[in-house]
């Protein structure tokens, strides 16, 4: 009987967490910094990857894929796509057969898997949602197919921190405390030496820790933030109103509530909440406000 009960409990706990749609936003600066951040991360973990990680001019070679820094001044980003799992990267990275070793390495890095459908939106000029590849949600420049470089992201855009790209994903395993490790394919171009030619193009796969920027993220952060009951009641009420507005298909009203949430928390600093705790909530609420406007 005890064994049966234990088995039942085991079965219940082994059930994967319910899938949840989560929102992620990106700025040009986020994309511009992603390759270097990933290169730094894998170099620190070089012992795990053995000879499959090598230093190459201007970047690293990771399981056969070169991730070249934008810092050389010639490489620019022309396409970004969030992949639904390590197998997808293996499939896209392989020539005739999947690059299984790359897939295994990315799996070991605990990348987030997701299921369709997805939503992609962008406010960035010259950029458009690109969902042409199954299992990929992303963006490409308008001239991606004909090699027109207008709108590409270069190293100098590390200062453009305004969120302009939004991806909504149905994550296979939800995140409640911490970032989702998104697997992102970044296509870089080197402009052609002669006019009319296509740029030299390569796709590198990086794992980027990205925090969700949605009302659920605020709810989760609020739940683990110490504050007085008075403030908690006030801001929980505001979040309820925001959720109701979103359910009523009024994101503009939800955005206003997100800002009201930030204001209420900021007002409570020193009396109802510590500065450090407030900072996280205020910054996230303003990011959610931005995300709801995309």
């Amino acid at each position: 009987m005890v064994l049966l009960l234990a088995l039942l409990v085991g079965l219940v706990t082994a059930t994967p967490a319910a899938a949840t749609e989560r929102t992620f936003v990106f700025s040009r600066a986020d994309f511009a910094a992603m390759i270097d951040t990933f290169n730094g991360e894998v170099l620190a973990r070089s012992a795990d990857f053995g000879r499959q990680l090598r230093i190459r001019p201007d970047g690293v070679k990771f399981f056969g894929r070169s991730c070249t820094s934008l810092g050389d001044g010639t490489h620019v980003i022309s396409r970004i796509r969030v992949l639904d799992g390590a197998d997808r990267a293996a499939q896209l990275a392989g020539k005739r057969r999947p690059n299984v070793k790359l897939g295994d390495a990315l799996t070991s890095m605990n990348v987030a898997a997701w299921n369709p459908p997805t939503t992609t939106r962008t406010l960035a000029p010259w950029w458009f949602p690109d969902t042409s590849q199954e299992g990929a949600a992303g963006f490409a420049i308008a001239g991606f197919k004909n090699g027109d470089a207008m709108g590409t992201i270069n190293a100098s855009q590390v200062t453009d921190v305004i969120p302009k790209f939004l991806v909504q994903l149905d994550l296979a395993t939800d995140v409640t405390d911490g970032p989702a490790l998104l697997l992102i394919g970044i296509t870089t171009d080197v402009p052609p030496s002669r006019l009319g030619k296509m740029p030299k193009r390569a796709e590198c796969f990086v794992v980027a820790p990205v925090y969700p920027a949605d009302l659920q993220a605020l709810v989760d952060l609020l739940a683990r933030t110490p504050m007085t009951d008075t403030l908690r009641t006030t801001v929980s009420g505001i979040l309820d109103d925001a959720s109701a507005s979103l359910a009523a298909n009024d994101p503009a009203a939800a955005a206003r509530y997100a800002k009201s949430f930030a204001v209420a928390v900021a007002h409570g600093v020193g009396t109802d909440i510590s500065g450090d705790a407030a900072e996280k909530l205020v910054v996230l609420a303003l990011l959610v406000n931005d995300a709801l406007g995309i």
Partner: protein
Amino acid sequence: MIRALAAPRLLLALLLLIIVSATAHAEPHTFQLTVGDALTSVDRYNAFLVSLGKQIHGVKLVPGGTVFAHQSCAGLGSVFRVGSIAMVSSPDALASTVTSRAARKALDTVFAAAGVETWKPPGLNAETNLPFWSFVKTDDRVKFAADAVTTGSGDVGLLGPEASAGVLRFTLDVHGFPDLFGRYRLMLELYGRTSSQDGALVKFGESRCFTFVDLAPIDLPAFDTLIHANVTNSRLLHSILEPRLEVVDTALLRRDFVRALDALAVIVSAIVSHAPTLITVPKARFLAEAGYRVRRGVEFSPANAQCGDGVRQTGEACDGNDLGGFTCVSVGFGSGTLACTADCHFDTSQCGGTAVCGNGIVEGTEECDNGAANSNTKPDACRTNCKRAYCGDGVIDTYEDCEGKNLNGETCVSLGYTSGKLSCDSVDCVFNEDNCND
């Protein structure tokens, strides 16, 4: 002949003076570096080395990172526990620890490409909240080290990633200018060591490297500069933020930290509540982060700060008889004897010459005092309670839209909407148009 030569020389000297004075811009700023920042800087430095491509030669991959110019921080924080962290004043200062000329040249190339800031030694006010760590005086660095390194006491103070939140605080006379986000790129020297067995100092492995980190100052002048660079709306800037910045400044000068923190909270609230009407949301987010950074600076207290030990330290206005040179007069009173409370705040109960609002002299906690010109009806005047004109005082001031129910004759329709109910924001006295209909 001598005269003929003297004129160009004088001109040259003058030119040199102009160049030197133009380039010798140095400003003291206070920074707080966390152990986490220092550890993260290693990954970033490795990626930067690789991104330099053919500009440098000899970057080698080793387990846990890279080796370049005989320097490596591979495994720092894990295999090698952090034993010291130093801010290096300029690449010239490498000479004291990097003996190979070729290695120095290679590192010079890297740090020139990174564009690190130089600063004028000595660093000031070096403090930390890390237990068993202390400031080590050197000529060209601000160096903090664990007892294990300074006194050779076993492994005492050696750090791993679990100590990421530990803070090193210091003031530097930085040359040059910050980036768009108000950050300075500072050069770091990191040193790590393997643990010695059972705390007994036997043979241990070492790791030393140079990296860089982008740090934004935590002092009020830096925040003031960021506000003036990012807030373009004159009402928000001049009427709402500048008076509060003055309050923080005065409170910090008087070491009245409670009042300074209150005013900082009001500043951040005002910035956030005025987005997106008077400031964009990304800028509000950025300035809110900067405001909370200053707050952290005010709230910081070093590991050795112990209220009641008779020594005034960061975060304490006073401690016992140590008043830090402050008197009743310097905290805004006319006369009397200043004392210290048990929780290390100033006790002004014995200060005389209590502020008299209306005598034309700013005293005590008065924000202003224009004597007979104090008024509760004139816009922008110092109020009769000696507070600056503020939202909620019943008078519509220059940068206010409204006050309470007084909407200055405006309605939703007069503002261009078709209908709805206009109201007044009680915090900042601007129109709340949420209930107006397009």
